[in-house]
């Protein structure tokens, strides 16, 4: 079996790993559950800076991770993760079994100490429960990748050309572009999931993405602007672009040129002097992409709601405890519906999550009422609800966390032009830039790429360095128009967990209108 690791390797070891988990692991003392995730990625890409080549690389990554739930008088989790290489190919079963044993030792020790703590702390110890997973169906399935141009067939030289030409396109937007950089990459990722319950799930994904940054100078100061493009498809995403009606991606060269041209235009606009009072704001789909991400998606993650992220990524204002929460309560205008759906096409699409749970749509807010959190098997069991397939890790050696998938505001009925046209005085907030969101997501400040004044239904003066800030519920309750122009965009770098995992997903929505306070400089 020696040789270079490629995605076909997982086909060869699928049965072997499955048997390790369902047979050998189950012989370990007091083991109640085990799963092994293994993945191989074949990737290539290049980067350019100021129109010249900077690097290119073609490589593989190969790793695995183990979860064990074990214990005699109590059950508790233990984990293990490791990067692998060619040297591990011939003894992969031994390497994985050693990892299972490490995770098992940790789970058993964890369970023993949990029992000790329960005994020491009276009623406070009662909260230390026996780890359980909500039931899911046992699945054996293979899911192929979708692409036209196989990432493996793209030459490294082609990725360099793409990065350099696109960087030059950005640089060509004008003399005010003082710096530009791009990267272009494409990969095939194959993931194997085997559980002691008998599931064996083999999923392959194609992914292609590009990044561009432009630094533009003007009399008003430096403007840095950057964005990502990409989709779960092959190299054609960068050469031709993509359009399915809701996902509209120009080819990468055009994407870079447009971004830098926007940067120059915005750099030359005066900074927004934000009015003291709240005002009518119309937000475009790209701005609402970040808004739904930060202010709906994140607080809809059940691990946050159950306080797992108290120290870092934060809690959720939707949930205080099992009795006192916002489930079934109005948190937004009846015009607002938001959901996550990994079965839709997007950057966060999949058939099964990393718990082996089938993916499905979860409505967070339906007609203004909070309905369902994103969950995994463990948190679903705590809340007593069915798992909805939202456990995902960025790499197999890391632990799956509850993550957004394709999380969006649902389209409305209104023509977006009429949403602007009805505004006598207000602002049009276009394109997302940088967020700062309160700990339980109860308040936000998000800056935009462009802010236009609206007067008598017409767009007027363009401003830079503007954005909006509001208390979350107040803003969502103020929404009085939702457009029919639904769009989705890739978000490639959502950070969560310790160590930090930067996850890919899609977010999006239509044009919307509400009331908020504008922000400017300072």
């Amino acid at each position, binding site marked *: 079996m020696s040789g270079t690791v490629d995605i076909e390797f997982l086909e060869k070891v699928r049965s072997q790993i499955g048997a390790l988990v369902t047979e050998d692991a189950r012989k370990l003392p007091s083991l109640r559950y085990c799963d092994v995730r293994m993945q191989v990625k074949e990737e290539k890409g290049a980067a350019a800076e100021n129109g010249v080549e900077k690097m290119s690389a073609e490589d593989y990554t190969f790793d695995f991770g183990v979860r064990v739930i074990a214990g005699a008088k109590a059950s508790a989790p233990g*984990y293990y993760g490791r*990067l692998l290489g060619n040297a591990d190919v011939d003894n992969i079963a031994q390497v994985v079994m050693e990892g299972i044993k490490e995770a098992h030792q940790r789970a058993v020790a964890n369970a023993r100490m*949990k029992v000790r703590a329960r005994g020491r702390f009276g009623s406070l110890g009662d*909260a230390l429960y026996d780890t359980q997973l909500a039931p899911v169906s046992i699945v054996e399935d293979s899911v192929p990748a979708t692409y036209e141009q196989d990432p493996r067939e793209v030459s490294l030289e082609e990725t*360099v050309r793409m990065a350099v030409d696109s960087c030059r396109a950005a640089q060509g937007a004008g003399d005010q572009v003082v*710096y530009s950089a791009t990267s272009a990459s494409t990969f095939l990722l194959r993931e194997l999931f085997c559980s002691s319950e008998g599931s064996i799930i083999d999923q392959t994904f194609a992914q292609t993405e590009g990044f561009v940054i432009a630094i533009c100078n003007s009399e008003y100061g430096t403007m840095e602007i950057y964005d990502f493009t990409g989709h779960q498809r092959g190299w054609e995403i960068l050469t031709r672009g993509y359009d399915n009606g809701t996902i509209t991606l120009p080819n990468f060269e055009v994407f870079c040129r447009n971004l830098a041209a926007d940067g120059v235009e915005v750099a030359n606009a005066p900074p927004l002097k934000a009015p003291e009072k709240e005002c009518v704001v119309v937000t475009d789909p790209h701005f609402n992409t970040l808004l739904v991400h930060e202010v709906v998606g994140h607080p809809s993650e059940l691990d946050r709601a159950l*306080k797992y992220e108290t*120290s870092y990524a934060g809690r959720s204002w939707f949930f205080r405890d099992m009795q006192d929460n916002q489930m079934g309560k109005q948190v937004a205008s009846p015009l607002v519906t938001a959901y996550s759906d990994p079965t839709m096409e997007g950057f966060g699409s999949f058939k099964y999550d990393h718990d082996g749970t089938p993916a499905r749509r979860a409505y967070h807010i339906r007609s203004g009422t909070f309905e369902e959190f994103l969950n995994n098997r463990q948190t679903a069991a705590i809340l007593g609800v069915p798992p909805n397939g939202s456990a995902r890790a960025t790499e197999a050696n890391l632990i799956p966390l509850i993550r957004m998938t394709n999380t969006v505001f649902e389209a409305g009925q209104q023509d977006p032009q009429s949403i602007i046209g009805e505004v006598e005085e207000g602002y049009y907030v276009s394109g997302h830039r940088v967020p700062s969101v309160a700990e339980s997501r*109860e308040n936000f400040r998000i800056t935009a790429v462009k802010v236009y004044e609206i007067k008598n239904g017409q767009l007027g003066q363009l401003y830079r360095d503007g954005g909006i800030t509001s208390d979350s*519920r107040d803003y969502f309750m103020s929404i009085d128009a939702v457009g029919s122009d639904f769009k989705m965009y890739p978000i490639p770098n959502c950070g969560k967990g310790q160590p930090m995992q930067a996850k890919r997903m899609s977010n999006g929505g239509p044009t919307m209108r509400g009331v908020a306070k504008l922000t400017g400089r300072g």
Partner: protein
Amino acid sequence: MSILPLSRLKALAQDALAYLGTQPDISEAEVFVSANTNLTLRLNYTSRIPSNGVEEPKSVESYGLGLRVAFNSPEGVKTGFGSEPTDLNLEGVRRALDKARMGAVLDPDYVSLPHPTGRKPTLRRYHDPAIMRISNGKMLEVGWETVEKALEVFTSSEELLNAASSPQGVKDIGLILGGDVVMLQERIAIASTHMPKVQTDESTMLMAFVTGMLEDEHAKGTGWHVSSYLADYSGQPGRDAARSAIATMGGQRAGSGAYRVVLGPQAFTEILEWVLMPSLQLDVVYAGASTFMGKVGQRVASEELYLYDDGSMPGLAASRAITDEGVPTGRTDLIRDGVLVGFLSNYYEQQRMLRDPKGGEKLGVDPASIADAIAGRNGFRTGRGGGRNFDAMPSITPTNLVIEGKTPRTPDDVLRQVGDGIYIGRIWYTYPVNGIAAGDFSGTIVGDSYFIKDGRIAAPIKPNTLRMNENIHNVLNNILAVGSERTRTVRWSSDQVTWAPEVAVDDFHLDEIAGYMEDVY
């Protein structure tokens, strides 16, 4: 599983460099071999929601080699990087070399791989064998003693008992203990054409960051710890977090306005690392995105402020003997007495800036005149939440960031400078909302914060009720006092350490937020 021995990494670095020397098209080469383990215990205790206490006892292990190679080609010198995991023999070296050769590009900014600096590393045998050899059982003990220290405080607190009316009622207040303890095991060996003698380094680190909450009391507190040694740790961040949470019970709202504030060590660290430090990296200056373009030698902050990075200081947790480029670590002054004097760099960026025709304009002085102030003392191969990774190119990474004041100030002196104002102990999501160059930032106050009355700590501030809307230049120039006592401070998913004092700042803008939450819970 135990981390690979240093001798094996060293032997491979030596053999690999010898092999690369036999390749006719190679003009320069560097071999970096490393083994890393990140041991993390994520903690989650909740008194009225079922929880595990120690939620994620886990590790990520990695080892392998990375090559930086310069190839002679008909078009000129091409540079490439290739790495190979787990294959610590010549076959692995050949694979990594093939990747470096295949990916090599003509980078016009490339000058050379690092050359010897003439200095010698000052640190020797500074790692902790106890962290290097820690067992699974001991690892779990570290996590549980942190949880139990917090539970000991919660069960014995008179204040909590009074608030709850009965021991049973304490549970119903909604106690939370979250956070993590991270232990890093790092071993490296490095050799290159210009520094052919194999250098090795071993480093360890223990970082803990823990949050305690009493949800119904709207109280939140923090405890943290950073050290190179396991023996220094006894779970005290759990106790500190619980005590600090109890101390902030009964928090009150403050109105919007401009305040005199004291930024506590965590708050100042967060602003420093998220908002200021990107502008103090030479690659950001090269790109024209620093907020300090053309400002070297100019006053950019109150003369009270002295900021430097020192990766070589004995006893500081983020110190290392050598960088991941094989040069000795050292001290880089950044802002001295309020004047901008240097930038953090790696070797590549320093060499590029020295030859940049616009370098003088970007820095404000001739780059050659400050060559040592932009020397490559911070080239580290970071990633995976810490570690020295074989599959990463050296980037610019701070080590120990140290803040000193010009005038000695006790904590009481710092409070007295404020008189009436706000002590900001912990902030969150502090981002440069209009880009790095603009310097504007926003974030929210999430705990450990108090009113200051007559130069003394007074009533606690209710968490999540104030948003900061400020600019880094205002903060730096409105510094009233820098405390003399420094606390080692860490932030999320980073292994850099800031030795931060309390800093008093005038005219700091805060906006009251989330009034509706008073009615929600």
